[in-house]
């Protein structure tokens, strides 16, 4: 039964009632224009804010940017303070974080996206895993910082007391003696906690130049030897040593302490969910026909993933990874939790060395009351943002280059 005009509500059939019930045209048009204006205003003000922020920072920071700022260590005197250890610390993180996060993230994403189970129970588990990854991405980075502080720094306090280590590799310990003629003699000892070396005639030692010598011991009142070579290796029998350590580049210890490795592992926790989600989206964007073609050619599921699907998704994966890593480089809160504010003047020499990173150093300067340090922070921000903008640019270039459709 078709409806007749007379069945329509009066408001539609009667033009007068219709006009009375609806808002007049000019009012509707005006609110339309206002809404449009608001939308345009909001959108362009976000671009405006970005421009304003960057200009403000450039204005504050570029003035003090100099070669000494880039090559000097931080200093209590703002005039000579520099950013060098922070830059080096960030570079260490930049190498370590992708090395650890990328394989784990990509593997998880491939398992979750390409090997989806078909059984109902497993499907349930799969969707729970998915929800879990989404949640991990939403955990505040400061919470990951606390987890890193508890697990990596002290291993729950089980593995050795503060400052002591359970296991150490790549460390050589010496007892260091100062002789009367200011000669440094280093006597090798078994370990960092070994008993103090006992001075005996002919004890093997190293000079500060790394030369092997045998120590000549004389009594308290004995005359100091005239011979120059002998004088270089002479000590009095009451001389007491101090313990020094030489750590090689592969130095490793458990618990990890507050070193670069701890920082990198904590940042891996922060960006792992981000990398997983980005990789999953990239894999999802690969058309299904490619997989079907590969299976049709007789490739196994794994071969399909590794040789067909993943290579096609690679540019997008790289874009997502670069953005995730640039987030890790700019992240300060987790590092602040594990490393705190420390006065570091040397770049890290091994993965266990104390470190500072660019965002940490910026925070360190920004929280001080003096304006000179704020200027230093602004210069640091200019350096950090330059690096991050380069990262963003690379990511965008990769994305635009690979924007050709696959289907």
């Amino acid at each position: 039964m078709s409806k007749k005009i007379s069945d329509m509500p009066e408001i539609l059939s009667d033009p007068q009632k219709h006009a009375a019930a609806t808002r007049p045209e000019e009012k509707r048009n005006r609110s339309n224009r206002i809404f449009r204006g608001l939308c345009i205003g909001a959108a362009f003000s976000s671009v405006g804010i970005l421009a304003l922020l960057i200009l403000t920072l450039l204005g504050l920071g570029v003035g003090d940017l100099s070669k000494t700022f880039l090559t000097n260590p931080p200093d209590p005197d703002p005039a000579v303070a520099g950013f060098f250890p922070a830059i080096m610390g960030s570079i260490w993180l930049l190498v370590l974080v992708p090395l650890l996060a990328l394989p784990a993230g990509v593997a998880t994403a491939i398992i979750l996206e390409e090997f989806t189970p078909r059984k109902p129970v497993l499907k349930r588990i799969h969707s729970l895993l998915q929800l879990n990854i989404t949640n991990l991405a939403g955990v505040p980075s400061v919470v990951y910082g606390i987890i890193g502080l508890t697990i990596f720094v002290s291993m729950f306090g089980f593995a050795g007391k503060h400052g002591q280590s359970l296991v150490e590799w790549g460390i050589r310990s010496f007892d260091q003696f100062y002789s009367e003629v200011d000669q440094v003699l280093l006597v090798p000892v078994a370990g960092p906690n070994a008993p103090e070396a006992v001075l005996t005639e002919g004890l093997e030692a190293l000079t500060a130049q790394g030369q092997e010598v045998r120590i000549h011991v004389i009594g308290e009142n004995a005359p100091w030897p005239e011979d120059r070579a002998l004088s270089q290796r002479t000590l009095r029998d009451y001389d007491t040593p101090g313990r020094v350590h030489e750590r090689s580049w592969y130095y490793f210890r458990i618990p990890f302490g507050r070193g670069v490795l701890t920082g990198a592992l904590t940042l891996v926790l922060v960006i792992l969910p981000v990398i997983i989600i980005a990789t999953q989206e990239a894999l999802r964007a690969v058309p299904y026909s490619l997989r079907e073609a590969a299976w049709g050619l007789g490739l196994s599921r794994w071969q399909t993933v590794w040789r067909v699907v993943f290579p096609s998704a690679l540019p997008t994966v790289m874009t997502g990874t670069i953005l995730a890593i640039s987030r890790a480089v700019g992240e300060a809160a987790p590092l602040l939790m594990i490393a705190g504010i420390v006065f570091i003047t040397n770049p890290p020499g091994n993965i266990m060395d104390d470190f500072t990173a660019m965002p940490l150093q910026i925070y360190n300067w920004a929280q001080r009351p003096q304006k000179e340090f704020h200027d230093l922070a602004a210069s640091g921000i200019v350096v950090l943002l330059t690096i991050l903008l380069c990262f963003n640019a690379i990511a965008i270039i990769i994305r635009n280059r690979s924007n050709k459709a696959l289907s």
Partner: protein
Amino acid sequence: MKNGIPSTSKKWFPVSVRLRSRLTQKVSEAGILSGMGLITTLSVLLTLIIIIVLGYEASLFFQQDGVSVRDFLTGFEWNPLLGSEKHFGIWPLVCGTLLVAVIALLIAVPAGLLTAVFLSEYANPRVRAIIKPALEVLAGIPTVVYGFLALTVFTPGFKLISENVGSYNALSAGVAVGILILPIITSLSEDALRAVPNNLREGALGLGATPAETSFRVILPAALSGIISSILLAAARAIGETMIVALAAGNTPKLTLNPGEEIQTMTGFMVQMALGDVSNYGVEYLSMYAVALTLFIITLGFTLMGAIIRRRYREEYQ
């Protein structure tokens, strides 16, 4: 290439596959897959590790003298460092956190949604090509930079306008967090808006609705689940934001709704504890874990809610 049969060269196969015995292939693939499965379990175990670590250390905190779960959840005083009598009531920290988050959302929700509507309904491709990357860059700026700006640019600016604004205040921190979460709301909401099929737009416009009416009465309701989940995710981010509040909001936990006052957030307290010289395993150090657990539960609630709303209430078209 004898007798016209193609060899297994790259010339004939788009993918070069080494031909191995079936068994070797099966064994090696099983090895690779189980290794990857192990890594997957590890990343999944991460949630459990977080809960266990925070729960265990927080339980140590609640076993300390003068501390109880009831006081923690109902107390209105938080002074772990000062005074002869220490009080551990979480509400001042929660209040500070919410104050900052609400200011941030008041800024980011309207601006972010309007920008999203502009990008999906009004902008032509050329304008989009400018605004989208700009928003991505805005999202990539480290939070310590926003914190620095809040401290050295926003706060002096607000001080010029009003005398009631302190050197550390919730307002500048909130505004900075608002700018920080704006790109999150914009990009997630825009995705939701663009997922609304074009027939709905065409239908509404064909019935004589203005573009504004179409957006308000048709597109926004259709994309509502995505928009709400974007707001929830942004709120979780605002609650967990650390560097901005550590720099600009101050270190005084207090129950106040005055945005000009110095406050302390949960994250701010955690940073203060990690930086301070309080002894490890003292009661105030352990309180950090209880605060972290509270923060984790709150943000987990928000992200879970966001994910569930997006999944369950998504309008399916086609």
